[in-house]
């Protein structure tokens, strides 16, 4: 902590300090405003919304928007609400979280604790895959999924998430295991502890924090994905983000903002909850994705 700007003594310092708090509060309001607006709008009646008063609290709580969004929202000709799409997202994201995390753990373990000739190059090449604009693989991936019989299916989408999640999960575990004392591996080698036994009994149990990071990263990223989901699903296999966009974009007649906002909150709630529960790990994932090595 550096508190150079502000000591506690003089009047000037106290004024400065008040100013710092004022600016921070301003920013806090700025960051909260959209969420606040979403929430209040979602529980207003449409008449009240159209009457203006963006920031006003609802005069009367009206859960029409939530009811509609959850039960009746139409995407295409299907008016089954957000629920089925939430389930699609949940399935895709869960699988696309568990599998790449497991593989990434093994990869990172091999790349850091059992380096071999070319392992750094391998890591570098794989890492590049985390940064490519996914547009570059969109067309061939669509063809591939069709060829294998997974086109426009949740299976195909999940597979895509798994493949392009691997660079990230590998990065996490590799950078975690890199700081693992190499003596542990040496000890294991001498004591005749096998590669997999060491992984299973020592490396993996010690990597719980980074596992959480990896899980949160994969979950939020796949949940929030739109590019792949919008090209690789059809109505039945659409994820909640595709459904939300479809639903918000394609209003039939008058736009029902309360329903839109409720739908948006529903779609964003899972990742928001994850963030609030495990924000520390979420941030760590972001940072690890940003700062290599």
């Amino acid at each position, binding site marked *: 902590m550096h508190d150079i700007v502000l000591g506690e003594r003089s009047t000037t310092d106290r004024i400065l300090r008040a100013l710092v708090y004022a600016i921070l509060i301003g920013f806090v309001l700025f960051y909260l405003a959209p969420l606040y607006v979403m929430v209040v709008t979602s529980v207003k009646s449409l008449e009240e919304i159209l009457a203006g008063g963006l920031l006003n609290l609802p005069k009367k709580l009206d859960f029409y928007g939530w009811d509609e969004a959850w039960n009746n929202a139409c995407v295409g000709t299907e008016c089954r609400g957000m629920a089925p799409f939430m389930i699609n997202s949940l399935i895709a994201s869960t699988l696309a979280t568990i599998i790449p995390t497991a593989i990434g753990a093994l990869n990172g373990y091999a790349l850091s604790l059992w380096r071999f000739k070319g392992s750094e190059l391998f890591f570098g090449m794989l890492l590049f895959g985390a940064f490519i604009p996914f547009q570059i693989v969109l067309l061939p991936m669509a063809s591939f999924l069709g060829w294998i019989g997974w*086109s426009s299916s949740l299976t195909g989408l999940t597979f895509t998430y798994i493949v392009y999640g691997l660079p990230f999960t590998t990065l996490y575990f590799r950078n975690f295991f890199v700081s693992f004392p190499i003596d542990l591996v040496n000890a294991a080698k001498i004591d005749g502890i096998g590669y997999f036994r060491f992984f299973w009994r020592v490396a993996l149990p010690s990597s719980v924090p980074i596992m959480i990071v990896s899980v949160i990263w994969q979950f939020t990223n796949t949940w929030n994905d739109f590019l792949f989901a919008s090209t690789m699903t059809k*109505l039945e296999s659409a994820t909640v983000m595709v459904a939300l966009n479809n639903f918000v974009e394609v209003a039939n007649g008058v736009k029902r903002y309360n329903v839109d906002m409720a739908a948006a909150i529903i779609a964003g709630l899972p990742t928001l909850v994850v963030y609030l529960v495990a924000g520390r790990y979420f941030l760590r994932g972001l940072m690890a994705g940003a700062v290599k090595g």
Partner: protein
Amino acid sequence: MKLKRKCAAFLAVSAVALSSATPVLAQGKLDIIHWWTSGGELAGIEVLRENIEAQGIEWIDAASAGGAGTNARTLFRTRVQAGDPPAVMQALGTEVNEWAETGILGDLTALADEEGWYDLVPEPLHPFMNVDGSTVAVPAVWSQINWVWGNKAIFEEHGVAPPQTWDELVAAAKVFKDAGITPIAHGGQPWQDTAIFDGILVSFDDPEFYKKVAFEQDRETLEGPMFREAMERLRWYSQQLDEASPGREWTQAQAMVLNGEAAMSWMGDWAKGWRVAQGQKAGEDFICFPTPGSNDMFVWLADFFFFPRIEGEADNAAQQAFASAVMEKQFQHDFSLIKNGLPVRTDVDNAEWDDCTRDSIARAERANERGGLVASLGFAHSARSDVQGVFRDTLSEFVNTPDMSVDEGIEILIDGLDSL
């Protein structure tokens, strides 16, 4: 007790099996990509669905709403790429031709000959059904684009009669504007920006001009005074809109007219379908008139279904059954009523049509006599999609850039066409 229930269950199952087996003419399944998801469109496709399902065919709806088929097209392309095309795809105009040329479409020639489609369907539609001598698509409905829909109450309240000429339109708009009403409700999406330009192009009542622009992209005409005037009219149009129009869905624009926020809107006759689905009545709640100056012009688009080649005999039979069902007289009658458009058969009974549709039919006939029955540019009927794309990008940019001069707009357009 237990036994009894089992028996009952068995009987029930048999009954279901029997009842569903009896009326089956064809079997198989169809997955259908379309973008008819609003009001009258949705009701229209439901009619078709009932018909198909009554034949024991499984209907797998792959509707994808939005952007005049943008999302549906994306979905279709991905699935073609993936080698998993749907059984049925909705298409507009030259899209049929473009896809037919890739060789992925199935052939309906035998069915067309058997049912005598080419005798029933108006001739302008033939080039989109028949590519290189083989029938690849079936039209579902065709629509007049140069329509204006007005809020009857507002027009009457301000004593404005439906404008017949461009000048009258300008005057009418001024009245509304002065009264604090948005003259024109517009959905500012690129396809809509282009669609209303179809209406402007025919507002000169000059078939030759339309053809030079829409079919030939004749450079001399594009640089000529009439096209300049067309762009001026588009600029004027863009000034009659409310500020929130960009990005708006067409149904929202219609709703603004319906709610009295705006006086009128330009849109094809599917907008009437939407109104009817909202419980509105032509002549009572809303008025319809052609875009000023185009009373004897008819710019049209047609919705087609085409049928990618797929595996499976039952499914192929189902495709044929679908095509046949679309062409059926009764369906054409019902569909044109519900979805609101013109039937693609000339022999459909017209007793139940409202005034707007009758007017439209009459206009089509009038226009046809003088060569004014023309295919839409905005929906890629008169030209391929890359040409249409240049128009779409340019016009949309022009509409949304208030300080872009007409000359600049024309220059960008011609540059774009040259770069193809």
